[in-house]
Every structure is written in C-alpha cells, then in structure tokens.
C-alpha cells in the first residue's frame, strides 16, 4: 500500500513528460541510424570476451599500481620539498621499482587496449559477410567507420576515466588528503591525454583492419608498430647517432645541436610524446622536455609550474598526438570510402 502511494506521484510525473512515460517510450524512440550503429558497436564491445580480458588486465594494473604508490608515497615526500603541495599526484607516478606506476602502465597497456579494440573493426564485418548487407541499407558509408570509432572511443574514455577516478578515490581514502583543484585538473588532463593516446592506437589498428583482410594480420601489424616504437626505434636511434656523438671537448654549439637533433628524432615516437606530456602534467616541477642551454637555466628558480605553463610546455606533444590520431583516421576514412565492397571477398 505504501509502495503504491509512493509510486503514484512518480507515475504522474512521468506521464507529464512524454519522453519518460512507458507507453510512449517505445513509440517515440526512433533514433538516428548513426546512433543505432554506435549503440550496437558499444554493446558488442562491452559484451565481448576480448573486452573483458582487456579490462581484467587494466584493473589488475590499477590495483598493482595504486598499491605500490600507496606503499611508497610516504618515502617519496621529503619535508620542505616543493613537491609537497602536489602530494596527490604522486599516486599516479610513484613507484619503488618492483611494479611500475600508473602512468607507466597506462603508456604501456593503453596501446594494447587500442589495438585490441580496433584490429578487426572492418575486416571481421567483411569476412562475416555483413559488410555488404549493412551498406545496402540507406545509410552513408562513412557511418559505419565513424560509428565504430565513436563507440570504441566512448568505451575507452569511460574505462580510462573510471580507472583514474578509482585510483584517485582509493588514494583519497588511504592518505586522507584531498586533492587541490589544480591537482584534480591535472589528473583530468592526464586522463584525457591517455584517451587521445589510446585513440591513436585504435585508429592505427582500424586502418590496418581496412587494409588487411585477415584479422590476425592486422592485429600483428598493430603490435609490430607498437613494438617497433617501444623497443627498436630507441635502439636504432642510439646506433645511428653514436658516430655523431660530439666529444666532451666539442664546442657547446655542436653539443647543443646534437642534443637537439636527438630530441627531435625521439619526438617521432608516439609513446615518447605521451610520456613527456604525462610526466610534465603530473609532475609540476618538470620545467622542460627538451635540452636547455646554460643561459636558459641561469637564474631559474626551482619550483613547480602552474597548470597553464605545464600545459603550454607540452602543447607540441599534445598537438602531435592529436595530429597522428587524425592522420590515421583520415587515411582509414579515405581507404574505406573509396573501396568497392563486394561479398565476402
């Protein structure tokens, strides 16, 4: 009786709003085909085994990372340190060496997440024979690829932000010091950057899924690119640059030029861009990402940068990541729209 009384006003309110009332809901609920596709893709992602495995890996990572951070956060802070004001950010960056920190994990596993969610985006549709059936419906062809991208991006963003906030929440409970507004904004920026970084790998693997008919080939190419930038590119950079290393007695100008070119070449690695951008955002004391001359350092006071200055410092890195993401997307878009779709072949 009581429940009925309680429910009555709610039903009455619901009836006043046409969108909410149960009778009208199904009738009025005609979504644009694009959002129908996004819905379906998101559902597919969330229900798939692959996604659960990826989430399990990421969750374990978070647990491990926040555990080490909490164990070591006390040691990381020395009294009178400039960092003290940004204690909360240490949750994401501190580690004792046994397990990497959250940031390092994100830089390492993020690409895997992106590749894992995109490598069979288009070629699986083709090999299942659903591609030509879907494209014969009255939708624009780019809806399919856009929907796949938007859906995967939404799922990734959700996941990354949930993880980040969970770590922050766990830290809040454990250390009992709330983050300042600036710290909170820095964490948000870092999470957003992680989403962009994962989106880059997602787009790269979608590109491979359009280019290669076999899902296995496209997954392997994605992982190959990832391995190349993580392992081989830095190695190659060292080998190539070794003969040009100036001696300790060389002129400052040539040493500067050498360091500068090494820095520029390392900027081609998306993971390097991500690492520089995140470490600058999460460690306000980082004042520069490239080499500096003595004149530039002279007179500088060691102290944390304000958020705006940190962001300005890594603006090129952020832009670079965004540009790489957009280039991959534009390429996949072009390839997909130009392609002739016939049957399963």
């Amino acid at each position, binding site marked *: 009786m009581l429940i009925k009384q309680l429910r009555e006003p709610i039903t009455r309110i619901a009836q006043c709003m046409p969108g909410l009332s149960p009778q009208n809901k199904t009738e009025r609920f*005609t979504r644009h085909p694009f959002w129908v596709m996004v819905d379906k893709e998101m559902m597919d992602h969330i229900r798939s085994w692959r996604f659960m495995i990826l989430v399990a890996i990421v969750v374990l990572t978070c647990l491990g990372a926040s555990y080490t951070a909490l164990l070591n956060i006390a040691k990381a802070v020395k009294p009178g340190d400039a960092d003290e004001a940004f204690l909360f950010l240490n949750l994401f960056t501190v580690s004792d060496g046994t397990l990497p920190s959250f940031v390092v994990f994100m830089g390492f596993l993020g690409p895997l997440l992106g590749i894992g969610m995109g490598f069979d985006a288009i070629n699986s549709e083709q090999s*299942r024979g659903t591609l*030509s*059936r879907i494209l*014969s419906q009255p939708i624009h062809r780019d809806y399919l690829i856009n929907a796949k991208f938007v859906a995967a991006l939404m799922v990734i963003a959700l996941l990354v932000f949930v993880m980040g906030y969970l770590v922050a929440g766990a830290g809040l409970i454990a250390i009992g010091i709330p983050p300042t507004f600036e710290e909170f904004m820095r964490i948000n920026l870092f999470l957003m950057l992680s989403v962009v970084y994962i989106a880059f790998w997602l787009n790269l693997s979608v590109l491979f899924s359009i280019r290669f008919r076999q899902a296995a080939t496209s997954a392997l190419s994605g992982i190959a690119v990832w391995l190349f930038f993580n392992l081989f590119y830095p190695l190659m950079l060292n080998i190539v640059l070794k003969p040009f290393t100036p001696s300790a007695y060389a002129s400052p100008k040539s040493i500067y030029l050498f360091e500068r070119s090494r820095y520029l070449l390392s900027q081609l690695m998306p993971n390097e861009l991500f690492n520089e951008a995140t470490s600058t955002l999460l460690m306000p004391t980082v004042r520069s990402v490239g080499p500096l001359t003595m004149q530039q350092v002279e007179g500088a006071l060691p102290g944390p940068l304000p958020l705006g200055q940190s962001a300005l410092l890594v603006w090129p890195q952020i832009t670079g990541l965004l540009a790489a993401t957009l280039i991959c997307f534009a390429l996949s878009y072009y390839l997909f729209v130009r392609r002739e779709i016939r049957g399963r072949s």
Partner: protein
Amino acid sequence: MNSLVIEAEGLMKRYGSQIVVDSLDLTIAKGEVFGLLGPNGAGKTTTILMLMGMSEPHGGTIRVCGINPVTHPLSVKRKVGYLPEDVGFYDDYSGIDNLVYTARLNGQSPAQARHQAEQLLRRIGLWEDAHKKTGKYSRGMRQRLGLADVLMKSPEVIILDEPTLGIDPTGVRELMELIVKLSRDEGITVLFSSHHLHQVQQVCDRVGLFVGGRLLAQGDIPQLAQSLLNDNLYAIEAAIDHPDEKILSDALMSVNGVMSVERRRDLFHIRTNHDVTAVIAQRVIEAGGALTYLNRVEYGLDEIYCRYFEGGSNHDVN
C-alpha cells in the same frame, strides 16, 4: 505492368583495362520476376552493385524507381532491398535481433521493427528459430533470413544475388516459391542472378542471358529459344529395334523436316525443324522396326546454356 522500375542504358564498367560490363541495356517492369542468368564472372554482381549505387559505372545511365543511384544512392537503398551473395549475419545475435537492427538502420522504431520482424519470420517459416543465434543457422536458414532481412524495409524492388547458392534442392524450391509468392502478393519487382538455369526457368517471367559482360538476349523462355536457336528447335529420342541400322537411318532421313539422325547408345537422336513425331513413328513401323520408346525433346535453356556458356563466350548471336 507498364511502368519501368529498372532502366539501364549503355551501362559500362571497367576494372583496369578489362571491361566487365559492356554497353548493357536492361529494362525491368513493375511486378516482374527477372532472372539474370550467366556463368561465374560474367559481371552479374557488378551490374547489381551499380544498380544499388554501391559501385560507380564508367558510362551509361541508370534509373531505379526513377532515381539515379549514382547521385542518390540513399533514396535507392530506401526502396530497393539487396541480398548479397552468401549473406552473413552477426553470429552472436539472434535472428530476430539481426532483423530489428536492419529495420532500425532504416529508421524504424524498436517496437515497429520487432513487430515487423516477428511477422516476417512467421511468414518465411523461421519463427521457431527466431531467438536462436544466427551463428547456429544452416545455410538454407541463413538465406531465408536474408530474404526476410531484405523485406524488412518494405521494398519496392528486391535484388537477390545468387540466392540459391549452396542450398539443397528442397531448400531451393521452397525459397523460389517464396520469392515468387512475394512478388505476386505484394507486387514486388524481383531481379535475381543465378547460374542455375533450371531455377531461373521455373520462376522467372523473363530471363536475361549475360555472358562476358554483355546481355546476349532477353525475353521469356520460348522467345529466348527462338532468338538463339533459329532452327533445330525440336529433337526426338527413339529406341528402335531394327535388323539393319542403315536402312532405318535412310528411312528416317527421308522424312520431310528431319535434319540429322544420330545413334547415341541405345537411342536414336533425331533433330527436326518442326514437330514430326507422328510421321517418324509411322515411318519406323513401315520400315519394319519395333518402336519401344519415343520422346519429343523440347529445347529449353539447357541447350542455350550449353551453346552460349560452355561453348565459349565469344559466340555471336547473329
């Protein structure tokens, strides 16, 4: 029956230097069942893709329901249902969910879509399996679900690309009957491609013979036979016991209208230019032979098929 649903004029498509569809003229009237018959690689699928606006022609004009699919593919796709060759579904979705998704891509509301999917599934006899995942469907069931999928948008035209490929004979018959019934009941124009002439022969109002990117002939079966096989229209098979084959052959050859007599195993194969079966029976008995079997063979698409498809595609009609 007089308004034209599909009109194509001088349609051309090249892949590199190879011409796949060569100056194709095709007209299909409303409510017609048209069969596009041709061997593999004749350009049937390419033609269909161009009609759907999924592939750009290199020449010629197309109108489907009065709309140009090159410039307005979406309007065409709203009115035309297309069942691709070897259609696939999302394997981890049930049959009904697959249909509902198609309907929602066509802008229907979920309730409306579900209702229509239920009706169609009952109609094509898949209702018991509607909630089974399509990954567990057999090939025949998949094709039938494909037909339902095509009908979800209530199309004016349906285009089926090799709908009977890989289905057993009973399944083929059921599917074909379903297609014809749909066309008759709802006035849907049907275009389907096949390389199985018997299926085409059974259900099509008109047939187009498509070889090497060109439409060799179109019309109903007798018309086709007439235009492609000017003479040698009839053949008679007979089993005759006669002591001397030579005398019998001469007796048969003397019948007016007989073009050739040939012995194939136990049967005599007699080609004539008009129906002279009765005269032949009489002549055999007069010549002292014992007639045990006599059959008039009418030329169907079989013969046409052999002559134009297997006999080489560079055969000229005239």
